[in-house]
């Protein structure tokens, strides 16, 4: 038991270090990210003034980078939430140091992703109409309901496990933090004192949220898929789309969590707590999802292509060997096969290798969403040529700004909240040492 308590100080110190110290490197990175965010925000203001005409979209390809990013970034959110929920429900002890990072990623990416729904609107000042004359038959309305419900659940899922840590901050940080953060800790910790009764209710709440968040996340990605699948367009009108999108979201989501965990582990020197084991196990999850995703993709292509249906063949042809062939095969090999191989081969299963694999997956899956949306729109509904699409500077600036906002907001979140779940890690270790006393001393090495 001594060991655990000695670790507790170290653990607390590491988890709250980013709250107490920021340092020069933090400020430089934050500044660079903030510049990108500012450029993106400026680009959006420009678009608000001049209309969607400043994008590369046209009346053939009327959806572009914004809708691609909406699907892509909300997908990332899904990974964080479901990974954390499943690992909690199955009682995997190794999850403890990464749940906070995963849940924060889920929350931040959801907010950034959902913003793209508004960025894409042609007339955002009419948005209040959603509340005046909503059409329950519209998949967009399903989206709004699903995303808002999921947002609420993600906030709770981030907040509940945080309560004991907020109490630790309240009790131990003292004058190391300013008035505002102190106030946040006092108010949000809800008078937590670690009483058995409080522990019981908290665990109960976390468990309920872990169960609820899984179907909610499934619903969000299913309705996003139905946005496309309910139309009669070749390439979109597919019964497989909802589960296909769910697996895609999980795949890219787990990859995003790997990147966030590896990034914060290195930047905040958390190597003693987040071992290679955590990153490796996450990668195994990614491997399974990657294989599942490739299976879905193959099944979709085969069933659509086999009948040589006149409406779907042109879309498939443009993907397999037409205009979009290079991008498609780059996705299959770079975003699918190579990352799966990197994880599968023990020799390449190092932290660097896994980070490379995850980066490939995250970018490959963005490309895949491009390949779902744009080639189907390029395939005209009458056999005539269509206008091509490439994103304008404004669209790219907004996308890059949004991507920069994700790490920036995460960095700011961990200026206020502990980067690891102190309470959960202690709980897991105490449980372990009670069960297998001889292993408790070896925990640090694991």
């Amino acid at each position: 038991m001594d060991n655990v308590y000695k670790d507790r100080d170290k653990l607390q110190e590491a988890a709250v270090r980013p709250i107490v110290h920021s340092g020069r490197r933090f400020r430089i990175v934050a500044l660079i990210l903030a510049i990108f965010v500012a450029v993106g925000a400026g680009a959006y203001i420009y678009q608000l003034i001049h209309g969607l005409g400043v994008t590369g979209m046209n009346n053939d390809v009327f959806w572009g980078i914004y809708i691609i990013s909406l699907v892509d970034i909300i997908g990332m959110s899904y990974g964080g939430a479901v990974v954390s929920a499943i690992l909690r429900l199955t009682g995997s002890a190794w999850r403890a140091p990464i749940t906070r990072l995963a849940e924060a990623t889920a929350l931040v990416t959801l907010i950034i992703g959902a913003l793209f729904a508004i960025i894409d609107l042609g007339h955002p000042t009419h948005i209040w109409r959603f509340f005046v004359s909503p059409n329950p038959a519209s998949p967009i309305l399903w989206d709004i309901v699903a995303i808002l419900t999921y947002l609420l659940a993600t906030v709770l899922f981030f907040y509940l496990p945080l309560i004991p840590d907020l109490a630790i901050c309240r009790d131990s940080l003292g004058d190391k933090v300013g008035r505002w953060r102190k106030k946040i800790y006092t108010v949000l910790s809800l008078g937590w004192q670690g009483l058995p009764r409080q522990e019981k209710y908290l665990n109960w709440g976390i468990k309920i949220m872990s169960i609820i968040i899984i179907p909610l996340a499934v619903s969000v990605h299913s309705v996003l898929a139905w946005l496309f699948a309910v139309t009669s367009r070749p390439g979109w009108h597919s019964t497989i789309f909802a589960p296909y999108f769910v697996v895609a979201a999980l795949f890219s989501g787990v990859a995003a969590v790997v990147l966030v965990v590896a990034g914060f582990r290195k930047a905040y020197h958390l190597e003693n707590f987040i071992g290679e084991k955590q990153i490796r196990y996450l990668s195994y999850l990614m491997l399974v999802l990657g294989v599942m995703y490739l299976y879905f993709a193959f099944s979709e292509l085969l069933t659509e292509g086999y009948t040589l249906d006149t409406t779907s063949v042109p879309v498939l042809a443009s993907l397999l060997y037409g205009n979009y062939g290079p991008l498609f095969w780059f996705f299959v090999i770079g975003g699918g096969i190579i990352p799966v191989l990197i994880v599968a081969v023990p020799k390449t299963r190092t932290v660097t290798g896994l980070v490379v694999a995850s980066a490939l997956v995250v970018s490959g899956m963005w490309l895949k969403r491009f390949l779902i949306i744009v080639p189907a729109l390029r395939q005209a509904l009458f056999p005539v040529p269509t206008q091509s699409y490439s994103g304008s500077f404004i669209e790219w600036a907004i996308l890059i700004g949004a991507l920069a906002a994700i790490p920036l907001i995460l960095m700011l979140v961990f200026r206020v909240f502990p980067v690891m779940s102190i309470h959960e890690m202690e709980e897991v270790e105490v449980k372990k040492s009670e069960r297998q006393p001889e292993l408790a001393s070896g925990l640090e090495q694991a």
Partner: protein
Amino acid sequence: MATLAAVAGGSIAKLGFIKNDVQAKDNSVPSNEVLSQHQWAMVIDLRRCDGCGHCTEACSKEHYLTPGITWIKVYELTGSLGQKYYLPRPCMQCENAPCLRVCPVHATYKTPDGVIVVDQNICIGCRLCMGACPYAARYFNFKDPPTVPNTLPKPSPEWPVPQIRGTVGKCVFCIHDTRVGKLPACVTGCPMQAIYYGDLATDLATNGREAFKLSTLIKSNDAVRLKEELNTKPRVYYIPGHGQDLNF
């Protein structure tokens, strides 16, 4: 010739909304019941269409559309035997309209006389209706429309002029004209008289020079509707005649 014109003129008056003068006096909107006495439709004779594009021009001029927006678009197509032919495509005014179902804010709706219109003061510009439309008949206003003279009537969903940037617009069958007995811009603009405007309720159709019983015109010429398999029930019929299958 004179008799033809007289027949055509008479039928336009029959086609038209009769309470023309009443409307002009008190500017009131006719009741739904009165409006639903007409169910507008169109028959396009592909044998006559030579692809000149005057219909598109007349429409864009009438509605002050941004260049590039073509509420009636003429496709140049090739049949299975290699024969070239032209296909003017207005909005099909589907009875079972997919665009109408997906609109999240009820900005697009069907008028009592069976025409799909967009209230651009409601439209949020999400463009899902463009994804749902199987005929590519909907157009998003990416740019500001040309300025319109201030002598024009006040804009409404039936008379969406000028278009509003950031919202979706579409062919409205010129119901602001046809309700008062005038023919749509594309019909009068067609030098080949290839476009017939008709009314399913009174079973009449005219291209401005000839008039027919609409059902006879459709049946005796084996007119077809596009993408029948989607069950959208379009109100635009095409008379083929180049051996084309019109099966896209």
